[in-house]
């Protein structure tokens, strides 16, 4: 088990980026209260590569939503980058999402009307970057994921693997604290999947903090650290290497 954090965790000292303190999430279904996450304690440090596993209904998606600041916990605390985000308003949550979280989705979720560069620019646009700055950085990122020569193409003109690479570039746009990937290879053939996983490994080597949510053991093996959720609790946690 991860060490339970102190009341006032010193993030800079132990390098913790993300801390869950007895985090719970309940959904009210009529009179019945569904406990999706129960007292989750979790600490993620800079450079961690964490895989979250679990059968469907175990609370993976809810955990992802909370980590990604799309949802708020019912109780408990969530510190991201030293800031308690469990009580923030929608406006501040949006800002945190844009600044500190990079999403990679199973179905890529690129905007089809925009070309590659413009898709990568979106998170920077909402952070108020100038067009000049953001297009230069978008070009850089496109090159990083190996698509520097296809920047004017539309997502529909790319293969699935290429689209996912664009999505990863977009997730990196604001140099976020964590990159959050939800089944990143779920819609890809095995070859493209391997390439994406290699790209994620590469990011990890560059010091990025990654959280991958998956039900695929093979993908989970890429991570240094795995947790397994069952019925809203962390059932098991171990390190791969």
């Amino acid at each position: 088990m991860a060490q339970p954090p102190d009341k006032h965790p010193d993030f800079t000292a132990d390098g913790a980026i993300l801390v869950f303190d007895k985090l719970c999430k309940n959904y009210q279904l009529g009179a019945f209260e569904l406990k999706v996450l129960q007292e989750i304690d979790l600490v993620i440090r800079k450079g961690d590569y964490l895989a979250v596993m679990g059968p469907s209904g175990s609370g993976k998606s809810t955990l992802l939503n909370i980590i990604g600041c799309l949802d708020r916990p019912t109780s408990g605390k969530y510190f991201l980058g030293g800031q308690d985000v469990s009580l923030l308003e929608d406006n501040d949550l949006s800002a945190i999402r844009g600044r500190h979280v990079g999403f990679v989705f199973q179905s890529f979720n690129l905007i089809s009307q925009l070309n590659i560069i413009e898709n990568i620019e979106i998170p920077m646009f909402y952070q108020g970057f100038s067009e000049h700055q953001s297009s230069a950085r978008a070009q850089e990122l496109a090159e990083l994921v190996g698509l520097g020569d296809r920047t004017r193409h539309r997502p529909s003109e790319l293969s699935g693997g290429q689209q996912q690479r664009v999505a990863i570039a977009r997730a990196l746009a604001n140099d976020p604290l964590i990159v959050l990937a939800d089944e990143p290879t779920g819609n890809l053939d095995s070859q493209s999947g391997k390439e994406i996983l290699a790209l994620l490994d590469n990011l990890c080597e560059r010091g990025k903090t990654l959280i991958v949510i998956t039900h695929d053991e093979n993908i989970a093996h890429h991570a240094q650290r795995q947790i397994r959720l069952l019925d809203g609790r962390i059932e098991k946690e171990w390190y791969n290497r």
Partner: protein
Amino acid sequence: MKLGIKSLWLHRLRSTLTALGIIFGVSSVIAMLAIGEGASRTAMEQIARLGSLNIIVKTVQPPEDQQATGQQQSLQEYGLTYKDAERFRNSIPDAEVIVPIRRVAQQAWYRNRKVPIEVIGTVPWHLETSPIRLILGRFLTSADLDYKQDICVIDGGIVERLFALDDPIGQYVKIASDYYTVVGIVSSQPSTAASNQQEKQETDSSKAKAGANAGNIYIPLTTVKNRFGEMSMQISGSTGRKIEKVELQEIIVKVTNVDLVLPTRDILATLLERFHKKNDYQIIVPLELLQQAKRTQRIFSIVLGSIAAISLLVGGIGIMNIMLATVSERTREIGIRRALGARKKDIIFQFLSETLLLTFAGGALGIVLGCTIPFFVTHFGKMPTVITGTSLLLSFGISGAVGIIFGLYPAYRAANMDPIESLRHE
């Protein structure tokens, strides 16, 4: 913003159809107001020609006399008199001029040509109360009046019909059995609203017929009184003859200042009421007509404007409808943007700017169309139109307001969608 243009461009047909509502709305506002304004200006001009400082008292046939025409023969005496004019002169100090007018329908001869005309017996200061202007020679003088000179001033219409090539000045025109020397030429009487219609009817039915009046011939009032007298005879079919005695057809009183028009009208009315037993006169106050016309035109404009505004409203509802459809179609995109850091107000701004772009583009096209429609109306419908800057600003403002009002709700709905739900949306 760039994205807005892009997504509108992507749905060209839909955007065009949506903007069409605004285009028609805006153009109908402009066109309606232009037509209304044009009609109003024409009416104003026509009334203004009567002279806003003038009070016109006219002789009318009293209604009881009309009934009495059943008798075999009757002498009817009615209308304004020289005494009335005298009384006006004595009791209205604010009058600048008082112009008594006697009209006689006659025929004028020059050489072998003959045209129907109207003889207007008047005074030298007639020009002060009338829009007609002296073109050539001189108008009547006090001496002409005093010595009952056989001279006349003719207007442009008569010059055209009688003197094709000759210089009319110094020539003799024969009216009834007497000859009159032409001493001057004035412009034709501009048509007023009423006479305009009459003229139109006449030209429609019998332009070539001799019934059409070629113009006016101005002769000193005293001369007219001498030559033509005050009697006129009408033979009215089976019922027999009718003889009328009318001294003056019209007295025009011009006051010095606009504020005096209505009080003077009241004085005139009192005076006439006291000395006329029969209701044989009519007081026309152009100023009053002007004000009345303005009121009518305002109502007219409001009605036209509201019709146009309703079409704009319909256009706006169309836009809202489309934007709501767009929002639900782009639910996933909204979810993605929210996940990538877009705040609610960013989403609102995105959709609102798209709506505004649509309405302003529609508004601009509508203005172009709206300026073209009045042109065609004027060209083919022979109706005057005036496009005012206010109507352009108004319709542009309205299209902006429509964009905001009808864009706000769809944008608000887009912003308030749950990002988790919308990411899952297919």
